């Protein structure tokens, strides 16, 4: 197991090196540059030239890349040109917003999706089953962006049940520890702060959960149906095992295999959806920052953010594989 994990982790290195080379040179070949985005419409050519030189953008690309790599080796991703703050700090500031959103969506999707999928499979062909299959189709087909917008108009603007924007009510001077507002509230026992953050998460979390929820429901349903038809389930029932034991130990556990993979893959996709949802709810996470960085040609911020996200993506896949092998001994690579 350990060897499996180490080997998979080591595979990260060439992936990231390749990605950084591609990204670095691709970004640099884009027309324009930060000297245009950062200085106003009226800056003189001298001012722009001075800024380029100061930022080291006049050096040969290979020199610039080497500078980037040597810095990276020291754990320094450089500074955002837009904000004048270290890229790592910026990431640490914005990541919790996106992650909190993604996690809440996954919690909603798993919490509702697995029981619903299971029930639909047990009562195949029933009303619930049809509703689940139809509903999940709508869920998959509805763009997250649109759903977020609809939820906001109905529940925030018209009914006023939920806030329409932000991660917390403005002026809520809560103590910040991790940057995950709900977690911070619970850690510091500022219950009102945690609750306030949860209410702000409700609508964007729901909107973002639509696709993973639909996928998980369908996967669970299909998987449970498949397992229910297996010989060993019949054997277990014939042996007179308690129904509860059969359902949990035999059916659900085996049915969870493909669902776990789906959850893992959905988590990656969630980050993409989170970017759009963030913008609808002014959530201020990674998405809006990356977008702004492309506009200003903020090379260090773009490179840093994309590399970190890529790392995480690979790690999530690794975790999925590991959990898979824990669930199913057959998967373990000898």
């Amino acid at each position: 197991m350990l060897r499996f994990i180490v080997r998979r982790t080591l595979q990260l290195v060439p992936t990231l090196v390749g990605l950084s080379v591609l990204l670095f040179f691709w970004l640099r070949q884009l027309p324009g540059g930060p000297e245009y985005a950062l200085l106003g419409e009226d800056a003189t050519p001298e001012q722009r030239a001075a800024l380029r030189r100061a930022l080291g953008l006049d050096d040969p690309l290979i020199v610039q890349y080497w500078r980037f790599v040597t810095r990276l080796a020291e754990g320094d991703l450089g500074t955002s040109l837009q904000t004048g703050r270290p890229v790592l700090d910026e990431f640490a500031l914005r990541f919790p917003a996106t992650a909190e959103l993604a996690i809440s969506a996954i919690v909603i999707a798993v919490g509702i999706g697995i029981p619903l999928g299971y029930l639909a499979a047990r009562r195949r062909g029933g009303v619930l089953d049809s509703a689940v299959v139809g509903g999940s189709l709508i869920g998959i087909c509805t763009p997250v962006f649109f759903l977020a917008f609809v939820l906001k108009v109905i529940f925030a603007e018209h009914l006023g049940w939920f806030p329409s924007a932000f991660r917390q009510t403005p002026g809520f001077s809560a103590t910040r520890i991790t940057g995950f507002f709900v977690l911070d509230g619970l850690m510091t026992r500022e219950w009102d702060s945690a609750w306030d953050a949860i209410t702000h998460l409700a609508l964007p979390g729901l909107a973002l959960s639509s696709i993973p929820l639909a996928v998980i429901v369908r996967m669970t349903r299909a998987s449970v149906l498949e397992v229910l038809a297996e010989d060993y389930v019949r054997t277990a029932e014939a042996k007179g095992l308690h129904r509860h034991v059969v359902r949990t130990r035999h059916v659900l556990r085996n049915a969870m295999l493909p669902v776990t993979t789906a959850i893992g893959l959905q988590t990656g996709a969630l980050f993409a959806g989170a970017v759009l949802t963030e913008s609808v709810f002014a959530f201020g996470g990674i998405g809006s920052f990356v977008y702004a960085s492309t506009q200003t040609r903020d090379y260090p911020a773009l490179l840093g953010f994309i590399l970190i996200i890529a790392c995480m993506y690979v790690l999530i896949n690794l975790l999925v594989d590991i959990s898979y092998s824990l669930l199913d001994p057959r998967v373990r690579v000898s």
Partner: protein
Amino acid sequence: MFKPESARSLSITAIAMIMALIATGCAESTREGGGGDPNESQPLVFAGAGDPRSVDPVLANDGETFRVTRQIYDTLLTHEPGGTKIVGGLAESWEQSDDGTEWTFKLRDGVKFHDGEALDAEAVCANFNRWYNFTGNYQNSNQTYYWQKTFGGFAENEDKDTPEANFSSCSAPEELTAVIKVEEPSANYPGAFSLASFGIMSPKVIEKVTDEKVTGDPGSPVLPDYSQEAGTVAGTGPYRLVDWDHDAQEVTLERFDDYWGEKAKVKTLIVKTISEEAARKQALEAGDIHGYDLVAPADVEPLKQAGFRVPVRDVFNILYLAYQQETSEELADRKVRQAIAHAVDRQRIVDTILPEGGKVARQFIPETVEGWSPDVTTYDFDPEKAKSLLKEAGQADLEIDMCFPTEVTRPYMPAPQDIFDIIKADLEAVGITVTANSMPWGDYIPYTDSGGCSLYLLGWTGDFNEAFNFLGTWFDGYDSGWGFRNDELFALMDEVSSVPDQERRTKLYQEVNREIMDYLPGLPISHSPPSIAFAPNVNPPAVSPLTQENFSEASFK
């Protein structure tokens, strides 16, 4: 190990949580103030489009930063509330020497900084001397843009492209008299003394931050800590900075009780970031914020209908259609330039695209700027005239490319694509074939700068009331974006930029404007007021053409 029991309890918890949320619907929005006077009990929340860059304004050159720092700091001079006239700020009065190289400011008495220090001439000089003596990364044109633009370089320039210093010295002959000397007279003064970048900071703070550096190597300068948090900086403004929560993207300001002028009406002001325009509008409609800036022109009417307050700012910008005469020889013929001017229905652009208060531009500066000329050559919408001019020039079937930027709105150009569509249709109506070329803003500026487009849309928002701040941006010498050489015009610009006498300067500007509109290097299209919106229960501050709203004037009804 996955346990179905945990799945069940998890799902029950999740469902219970959602049910509870929906049942209670207890989102505490800003609509619910406490009891008593709302000005004391609830914050006024205003949304901008981006995070501020720094709470030390000298390190910034963007409106989002200045929106915040203008509440914290005062400048020596300022603009009258809601207008463009330069008036005293921290200086009660000011005068310049005859040769325009010495500026004497008589300061207000009894002004206090947020840290208890008193304002005197020494404090003013401490600020100017600090800026002048910046070294290292501070000299990066991105860090001290406005200093370099108006006062040139530093005591010791470290880069060959940094302009020569025009600042010479600051002295305090009396407690409340500051004298600032410059090497050469310039049309940048007195306007520069009103720039938000030069907000006056407490001398005690300056002592503290003198050794703070913009760290990191030149390629990745890191702004100093004090500029990124509350706790260090102190100005004399109506609000003091109490918190900058980067996580929540909000800056919290609190009324400064010892303010020298009229105290802020609302105790707490919060400035938030919402980068998407639609999200800003919905947050206002949902009651999560009390106001926002950069309202889309199309939203102005609906917001008004719904009872929101959308005061109209006066115009202080210009949108123009630039002619590139170097790479497009057809445009070197003045008749062709005139034909295009007569072909475009600028009134239609103003009526259909700009918000209320937009105006057709007759020259390259708005009417409120001194030096605006009442008698320039005008080019009315006249397609027939355009056709005959094209014929005379032998360009009856002219083919030309035109560029416009995408994914961007500028205060002077709310909808680039729509404006382009109208111009294209107008030009095609007189027989010109137009090839569209669009690109993102980041690519657009360098591309148009280097002469890549024959016709292109661009504009400018003024920093202060001085025609040179507009005209000097384009016409004080050869510029690759325009690609023309008009020595007469360049000589006039050169002369006017160093005339100390404001009255004479104004006359010269009028001459420059006449010369420009005769020569017609481009077509001024419109002046557009950037809109700002407030909730129905807010008395807005006087809106400023220079987007310098003073939020201490705002209050809840």
